[in-house]
């Protein structure tokens, strides 16, 4: 018995598979796996893209739940147990992402001059905190909210350093990808000094379970 490396869970036994990749089907849920040498489990740029390439090829043939990079199970039997015990959960999650892709958005604001009070003082700290909260709320309403309207689901977080940055993930119907990109383009132009990047389509990494974003 040897360890298996999990690439993804899908609902469709893929027709075209690279030689070193195998599938296990349990009740309509398909685990796509292979084996990896230790050095292939190092999170290098090349290894990450290799994982991504397999997942992307699966997306052409069915709904896909990508596995986190580096997921290794002890044996095919373990994978079977996992697929069996979580069959309903995976089926629901696959239904949710079917026909949809993930788009990523990063928006970076120019450095703002934060409240000019020493952060060490109690009042300075509070003023700074308030300003950060306001900036995050502005970022969310100006970038995230209009984009979320075009998505089935979304997640967002806002970083305050090294500059105000909004990182959003959007689950979008395939047919709406262009519309989403156009809206991102429109926002980038409307917001001027905000640098906005839209990447994807990605496999739905951020939408593999119901719990994550609730």
């Amino acid at each position, binding site marked *: 018995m040897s*360890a298996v490396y*999990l690439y*993804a*869970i899908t609902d469709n036994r893929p027709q075209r598979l690279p030689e070193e990749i195998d599938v296990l089907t349990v009740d309509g849920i398909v685990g796509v796996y292979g084996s990896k040498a230790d050095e292939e*489990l*190092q*999170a*290098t*740029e090349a290894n*990450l*893209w290799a*994982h*991504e390439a397999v997942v992307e090829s699966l997306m052409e043939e069915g709904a896909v*739940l*990508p*596995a*986190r*990079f*580096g*997921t*290794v*199970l*002890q044996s095919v039997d*373990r*994978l079977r*147990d*996992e697929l069996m015990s979580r069959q309903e959960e995976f089926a629901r999650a696959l239904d949710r992402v079917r026909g949809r892709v*993930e788009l*990523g958005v*990063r928006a*970076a604001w*120019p*450095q703002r001059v934060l409240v000019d009070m020493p952060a060490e003082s109690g009042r300075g700290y509070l003023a700074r905190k308030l300003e950060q909260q306001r900036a995050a709320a502005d970022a969310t309403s100006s970038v995230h909210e209009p984009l979320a309207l075009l998505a089935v689901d979304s997640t967002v977080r806002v970083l305050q350093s*090294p*500059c105000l*940055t909004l*990182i959003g993930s959007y689950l979008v119907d395939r047919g709406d990808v262009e519309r989403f*990109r156009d809206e*991102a*383009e429109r926002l*980038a*132009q409307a*917001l*001027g*000094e905000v*640098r*906005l*990047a*839209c*990447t*994807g389509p*990605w496999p739905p*990494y*951020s939408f*593999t*379970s119901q719990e*994550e974003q609730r």
Partner: protein
Amino acid sequence: MSSGELVSADPSITLVELVDRLLDKGVVVSGEVTIAVADVDLIRLGLRVLLSSVETIEKQR
């Protein structure tokens, strides 16, 4: 690049987005599973790329 344009093809941003997704998202299988320890250097690289892409953004302005 002038301001107000959508940055979509920047490879460093794409790499950050890839790292974010593959190491932090995706299906996690429970039970007797080994999640291979992510290479610390790459995570550092990822952060550096993130920072440098922000710097590039600043310079472009």
